[in-house]
């Protein structure tokens, strides 16, 4: 038997959630806290709004939680800090080992889909972390949603470790452990409740607003050119555009996700149509009240562009949802994208034409 060696490139001890290190037969292992600090919570809010989301990581490798002994369970997780934090939080008051895979900072499910939370990475991490020398058993608990990337039978064949798939949600992990590693059918099913749809909204809003600002800048420049340098006129058109874009974005990335189960249609583009029409009606009412440029082509342009934008943004929510398939998305896009492009082109043409017909 080889002499005990420390894990290869072990996780750094100066990460904020590391409280110390415990000595094991396979070298020192960083110990993590199971309570989240204000800083952890702020960090998760920040990434929910899309800021620094691609670099919210923890070091891959083996960690200890509580005061684990060699016979305590091993949990495998992704190195997206949001996933890791959720896991250590639900393990409060328990002892165990956490093996963090290098998923390039991506959450468990998406990383499994991409293959970074996969058989190869798991087998390599098992060997580089020295886990075999540290624990006395040969069982790994993986999140069920990692199954698209991990072939359990292959892991067993090549590493000797048996893979047990835990529940879909980390919050069910305590019940799963207390039931002797048994999950109820409900724990094995991915749902998409309103709360979960709601937390996905901020990142979509931020991303849409960022693009919206670019569009407004372009429209302002176009307005400036087409109105022969009239700053006031260009500003007025840009303001109208801003109101319209806000309505379109609200319809597509806020109303559609929240009302998803009740909106008519199966495809997301269709689901985004009704909120888009509602947005256009609201635009119509706002403009009528102000009495500004009502009845002009510019106005009709936005009545067309708001629903087009809404259905496009709704279609893009397929990636955030948990019940769409690639085949379905491709089928939807085959008819939806041409219609969206046609709607947007007609709208843009009307908008441009409006500068020549007063």
């Amino acid at each position: 038997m080889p002499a005990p060696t420390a894990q290869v490139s072990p996780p750094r001890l100066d990460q904020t959630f590391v409280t110390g290190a415990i000595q094991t037969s396979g070298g020192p292992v960083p110990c993590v806290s199971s309570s989240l600090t204000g800083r952890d919570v702020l960090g998760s809010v920040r990434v929910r709004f899309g800021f620094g989301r691609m670099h919210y990581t923890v070091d891959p490798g083996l960690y200890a939680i509580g005061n684990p002994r060699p016979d305590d369970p091993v949990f495998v997780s992704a190195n997206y800090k949001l996933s890791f934090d959720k896991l250590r939080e639900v393990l409060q008051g328990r002892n165990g080992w956490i093996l963090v895979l290098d998923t390039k900072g991506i959450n468990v499910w998406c990383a499994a889909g991409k293959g970074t939370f996969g058989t190869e990475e798991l087998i390599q991490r098992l060997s580089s972390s020295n886990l075999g020398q540290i624990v006395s058993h040969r069982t790994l608990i993986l999140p069920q949603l990692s199954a698209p990337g991990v072939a359990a039978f292959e892991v067993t064949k090549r590493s000797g470790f048996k893979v047990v798939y835990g529940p879909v949600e980390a919050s069910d992990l305590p019940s799963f452990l207390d039931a002797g590693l048994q999950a109820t059918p409900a724990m094995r099913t991915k749902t998409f409740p309103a709360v979960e749809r709601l937390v996905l909204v901020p990142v979509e809003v931020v991303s849409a607003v960022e693009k919206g600002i670019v569009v407004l800048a372009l429209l302002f420049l176009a307005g400036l050119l087409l109105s022969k340098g009239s700053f006031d006129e260009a500003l007025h058109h840009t303001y109208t555009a801003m109101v319209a874009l806000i309505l379109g974005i609200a319809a597509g990335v806020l109303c559609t996700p929240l009302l998803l189960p009740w909106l008519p249609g199966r495809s997301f583009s269709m689901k985004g149509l009704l909120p888009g029409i509602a947005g256009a009606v609201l635009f119509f009412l706002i403009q009528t009240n102000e009495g500004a440029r009502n009845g002009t082509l510019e106005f009709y342009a936005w009545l067309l562009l708001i629903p087009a934008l809404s259905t496009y943004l709704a279609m893009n929510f397929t990636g955030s949802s948990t019940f769409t398939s690639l085949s379905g998305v491709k089928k939807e896009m085959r008819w939806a994208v041409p219609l969206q492009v046609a709607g947007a082109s007609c709208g843009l043409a009307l908008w441009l034409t409006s500068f020549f017909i007063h």
Partner: protein
Amino acid sequence: MKTLIYLPDVVTLALAPHKCTGCGTCLLVCPRAVLTMPNGAVEISNRDACIECGACQRNCPFGAITVKAGVGCAAAVINSFLGRKSACCTLPSDDPSCGPGCC
């Protein structure tokens, strides 16, 4: 709450019943309760709930269940169509080493 279902009759999930040994692993990993095992062999009983995540295929030691796995993400389809290899979300089949980020 009731399960949300996407488009009907569209997924590529397929079963080769003669290869199935009834081990039940696919039932365990499916997050959408698509499969059942009423008589010792797996059956597809809720096809339209399938999201083509590929968990069943990946974990079947006998190749009894197959699906063209992928992510149901319009942005990924658009990015792949436009050839944006470094974009945050692409179809994994196009480039397994593509940059960080998705969803």
